[in-house]
């Protein structure tokens, strides 16, 4: 082997050594970085377990944002913290006073036919006409001032009560009464109708 050859080999070894150092640094730091990313990601993925463990479970009423997105509840704060829990309680059979009645699905086609296709069932027909806005809202004939919400409250029939709230909301241009309506669809129609009255 010539000196020249040995000298060349030495240069190669030195080069390899330098490369090896850089290489090792890259590998070590790269590994550390990846480790951090993975740990960060793992923590993020399991953030609820770590950050909320041992704390009280936050409820809707503790969450301001929730009330903003929950339009149905109309901002009423009414939690019953101390109430006993009735697990799987079957409620009584009083239906009359609990607002419910059969609510059929009313389509655009029903409205186009002026609900005549639902004439065979009176409640369906009347409900359909309310949804489609086909029943005229009569002016308050009595001329008396409406007293709070008592007038609608006194109505025994649940559907009639809903219609009463709707009429009241439209007459008074006040959509808070629409929230009293059991049928969600009718409540939405009521809100939109009050909007029309206001914008008129």
């Amino acid at each position, binding site marked *: 082997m010539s000196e020249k050859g040995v000298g060349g*080999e030495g240069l190669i*070894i030195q080069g*390899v*050594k330098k490369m*090896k150092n850089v*290489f090792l640094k890259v*590998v070590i730091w*790269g*590994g550390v970085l*990846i480790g951090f*990313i*993975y740990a960060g*990601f793992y923590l993020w993925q399991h953030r*609820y377990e770590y950050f*909320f463990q041992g704390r009280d*479970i*936050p*409820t*809707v009423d503790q969450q301001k944002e929730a009330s903003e997105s929950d*339009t149905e509840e109309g901002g*009423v704060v*009414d*939690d*019953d913290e101390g*109430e006993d*829990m*009735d*697990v*799987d309680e*079957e*409620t009584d059979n009083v239906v009359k*006073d*609990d*607002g419910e009645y059969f609510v059929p699905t009313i389509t655009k086609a029903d*409205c186009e036919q002026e609900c005549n296709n639902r004439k065979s069932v009176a409640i369906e027909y009347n409900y359909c006409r309310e949804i*489609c*806005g*086909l*029943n*005229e809202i009569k002016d308050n004939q009595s001329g008396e001032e409406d007293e709070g919400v*008592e007038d609608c409250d*006194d109505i*025994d029939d649940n559907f009639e009560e809903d219609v009463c709230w709707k009429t009241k909301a439209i007459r008074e*241009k*006040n*959509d*808070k009464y629409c*929230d*009293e309506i*059991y049928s969600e669809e009718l409540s939405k*129609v009521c*809100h*939109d*109708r*009050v*909007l*029309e009255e*206001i*914008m*008129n």
Partner: protein
Amino acid sequence: MIFLKDVNKMFLSGILLILAVSGGFFCLSKFALAIEDEDKGDAVLYEKYEKYRKYEKYKKYKKYKKYKKKYGFSSSSQRREYKQAYKNYKKYKKQPSKYRQYAGLKKKYKRYKKYRKYVRPYKKYKKYRKYRKYNKKRYAKYGTWENKEGWLRHKNKKQQTEADLGGGNLGPNITVGLFRFSKDDLRGSAFRVRANKEYLIRDIDGRELGRVSADTETRVKYSKGGKLKINGSIEEVIVDREVRFEAIDSNETEQIFEVVSPGIICYSDNCNFYRGELKLRYSPESKKIWLINNLPLEQYVWGMGEITGSGDKDYNDVMTTAYRTYGYWKIKYSTKYASEGFKVNATPGNQLYFGYSWEDRHQRIKEAAQRTRGKIVMYEDRIAIVPYSSWTDGRTRSWKERWGSDNYPWCQSVKDDYGKHPSKKTKQLEAEGNHMVGLSAHGALHLADEKDWDYEKILKYYLKDIKIKGVY
């Protein structure tokens, strides 16, 4: 030897490198999978949180039940009796000498007062009885932040836009109530109509009654029992409640009808020409006959009478966009005139609409409508109806401040120096119908003209967090 040592180290380094790279790939793939899982997971979280919400609602119902049991009445007649006693005793309390006879009603008064205090405010929760199957203790645990966040994400994702009416280039059709006739109006003199092209006459069921050549006049009179008598262009025929005038070809956009009827009150010089279709419709509810124009939303905007089009280009864009938004909302949700058979009327109560003559003489309105074609104002996924006033007193009002409801959060109070009337006071402006909610027309005009704001910037100034969306 040294060389071999180095080779060994290199080999080890290589293995480490391979491990690190594959580890990196593993992390990345896990990350991608986790994001995908989160999408699927949101649906699960949504379901859980929904259960929690219903559980909470049912709790409210239980509260109502509890109070009702304690302070409610056994029958509505008893409730009415106590209510009357309550009213009478109140009278006695105000004027004891005058209403002495009611002095003994104190007990009933107190009883009803408790009902008013404890039962009535909770009555609104009675509808939550339907959630009784969610009355399970385990659902209380679903009210976590994690579930709530997933619920919100999923809700936002699955929420569909309200602006889903479709429509071609000119948008969905809108029905506009143009004029209202009494029975007597059309008993004496006839409603007369003709068109620039051949047209069709149909009855309420769509049956063809005749084809009429251009410029030939058709006459309609009120008969009796809600019927209409048609003659002139066709052999006399009596139809039930409604008669329609349409183009021969349903794609015809250049059909113009001319209404040659006496007694029509116009808000402009000439409001007898209309695009689209016309119909006369008798309403059994109001006992009136309405002339209704059915046409695509864009053509409705071309005939808008709220502006003359002489202002700045961006002002015209603002106004046509607001006008279109109102029309779009009306098509989708209006029920006010449902019994009359249309969605919006052409008077200032809704939006002024003058039809083709106005459009023809105010081309800049049409140009603005074409620039903003199909664009409406949206707030999140809702059609953000835009109230507007001519003037303000230097500040617009929020919806809540003016009309009490907080369902319309895009209408917030903003400073309006440019829309401030130079001399009139607040009361005077209000008396003239300036509600000052939403858009200020003069403010918008000046911002466009003097500040050179574009129409989107103007709308976004007056309406909080809205976006402009093309819906067809």
